[in-house]
């Protein structure tokens, strides 16, 4: 009796998990299916699930609609630079906020939190004017420089650093380790899960960003993939959803790949902060 109940529980558990999984996977499957259909199939009702013959040409057509190699390169450069710069700023800042005592610490941390709360829609005009003044609108800088620091990352990392026992740092200091060494050899390796999480969040939000690149760029030479894909949409009339979805697949695949690589670390980050 007890055994049976246990088995029932496991199977219900599994079923619920599958159901939940479907909810999340469904839009991706829909996207992939549409990206392989013909225009007629996208318009058909009831909807086509499995295309009669997969239209791999859709991908070529989407990629030929604009200078996609340039867009892809820009997306890569922007996202990678942002993440590198953020880590370079974030780790020392979080370390200082977590482990140092200095005058004005809480005020400064308050300012970091404030920056965390101001959305880009408020700052984009002054930032654009400033960048235009510097004459860098035709470079990738307006999409990188404003994101050099990541307030959310500093906050998350500080919490994580605070959990690392003071004794470890003391021990290192006794061994004559410099502050830089403590940061790079002790704090950073011990907080890999948190760093991976922040880096991934940052990666996803900058890779997918549409608003900021749109308002900061005037020419296709400095535009990322998101804008290239939005150009596939019709302004008026019926959009070619199969082509748009092919573009979207190209946009989403790198995110999935990165997630597959980082997923273990991310789960860890949340588990750690749970036990404390």
């Amino acid at each position, binding site marked *: 009796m007890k055994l049976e109940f246990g088995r029932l529980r496991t199977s219900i558990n599994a079923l619920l998990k599958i159901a939940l999984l479907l909810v999340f996977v469904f839009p991706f499957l829909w996207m992939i299916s549409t990206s392989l259909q013909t*225009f007629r199939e996208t318009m058909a009702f009831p909807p086509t699930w499995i295309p009669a013959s997969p239209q791999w040409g859709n991908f070529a057509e989407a990629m030929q609609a604009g200078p996609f190699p340039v867009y892809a390169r820009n997306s890569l450069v922007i996202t*990678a630079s942002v*993440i*590198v*710069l953020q*880590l370079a700023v974030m780790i020392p800042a979080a370390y200082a906020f977590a482990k140092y005592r200095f005058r004005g610490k809480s005020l400064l941390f308050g300012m970091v939190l404030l920056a965390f709360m101001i959305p880009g829609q408020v700052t984009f005009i002054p930032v654009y004017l400033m960048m235009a003044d510097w004459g860098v*609108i035709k470079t990738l800088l307006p999409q990188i420089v404003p994101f050099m620091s990541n307030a959310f990352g500093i906050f998350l990392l500080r919490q994580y650093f605070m959990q690392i026992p003071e004794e470890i740092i003391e021990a290192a200091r006794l061994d004559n380790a410099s502050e830089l060494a403590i940061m790079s050899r002790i704090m950073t390796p011990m907080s890999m899960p948190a760093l991976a999480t922040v880096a991934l969040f940052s990666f996803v939000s900058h890779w997918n960003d549409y608003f900021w690149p749109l308002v900061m760029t005037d020419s*296709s030479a400095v535009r990322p993939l998101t804008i290239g894909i939005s150009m596939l949409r019709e302004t*008026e009339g019926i959009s070619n959803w199969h082509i748009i979805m092919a573009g979207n697949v190209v946009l989403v695949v790198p995110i999935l790949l990165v997630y597959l690589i980082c997923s273990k670390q991310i789960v860890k980050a949340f588990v750690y902060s749970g036990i404390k």
Partner: protein
Amino acid sequence: MVKRTISLAMTATLLAGLLAACSGNGGGSNAGNANAEGSSAPTASGSASGGGKTTVQFWHSVGGKNGEYLDALIKRFNASHDDIQVVGTFQGSYDETVTKLQQAVSAGTAPDVSMLERAYVELFADSDVLEDLTPYLEKSKMSADDFNAGLMGHSVFNDKLVSLPFNRSTPILHVNKTLLSEKGLSVPKTWEELKQTANAMVVKTNGEYSRYGLTMPYDTWYPIALISQADGKFFNDEHTSLGFIDNGIGDKVFQYLKDLQKTGALYYPPAQDSGNIVNQMFVEGKVAMMFQSTGTIGSLSGTVGFDYTTAFLPQDKKYASPTGGANVAMLAGSKHKDAAWEFLRYLMEDPDGGLQFILDSGYLPFTKKMAESQQMQDLWAKEPNRKVAYDQLQYAIDTNKDVAWPEIMHEFFSAIEAIMYDSKDIQSTLGTFKKETERILAE
């Protein structure tokens, strides 16, 4: 071990990223130079010495297939002009282009020529950032009379001609004639006929509507069309208030829509993506008639499996339809006005310019010459649905012109939502809308 691999991987990514960042920034501006976009050298010396090309920046909002037709047009222009290089750049939707243009004008990075959704022209004309095109037209021996009068409603402000029509459209009635013929019905010409026909088309199975009579996207365009057909005006003549509330026309229009909606004769779609939803329903035969832009004729003709035809929007007191789409304008701050005008002239009167784009895209021909051209006549003979759209232009009227329109439009949307979705009382909703409008207009 796992940790070690990951940290190694991370370091590698970081390094790669750093390298890419360094080389990438340089690369970005190099690419710019290669496309003659980033460099200031040719623009500075171009017009003076004649050694290089003058670069004309052109911002537009056309994506998808039409975007490709526009790119092809720009290529043809550049191939036929040794001294001018036009760089066309997509700037997002019509609204996004307006935002970008506003910030670019104040930052001094505005383009030479821009596409502007017609309702926003006044906003820019009012702040004096658009060039008066009259002298240029005269120089090229053109005049405002060369254009279709119905499409010139958003061109002249404060006695200056600041924009010319380009990719223009108008709402029209799209009909699934196969369904109508099954019941022996003809295409409706009046509101009364539309009501009867739409009701006759309704099919109910198991207590749910499986077919509706009429649909239209969630937009201010269609209520405005109905208001004009009932002989009302959106704004009163003094531009201090709305012109369709006190005379009861607003009540009449929305009562008409609600009556249709109640019996399933009208399917009013959800706000999000409404245009795509109604197109899809029409294609699937789940609705027999649709108010929708002329911009969809091309793709519908190629998609539907039934007898598809277009007709004028039905009349109440008269035929009337608003217009839509975008105009093109020259920025007053442009440093290459002659080159910019040469591009505009090409768009307006060169057979390889505007005419070819109109033939490709299905937008309305905007000059009289275009409409009379052999190519257009041939196309109309083949696709009479497009001719109907052009013929309806004789009844084109835009009564919602005001600098404050974008703001009032948002209030109008709220009123439409309250009435169409929440079935709020029509009279009191419109009363509130009128009060809000008066407040905005008084500012």
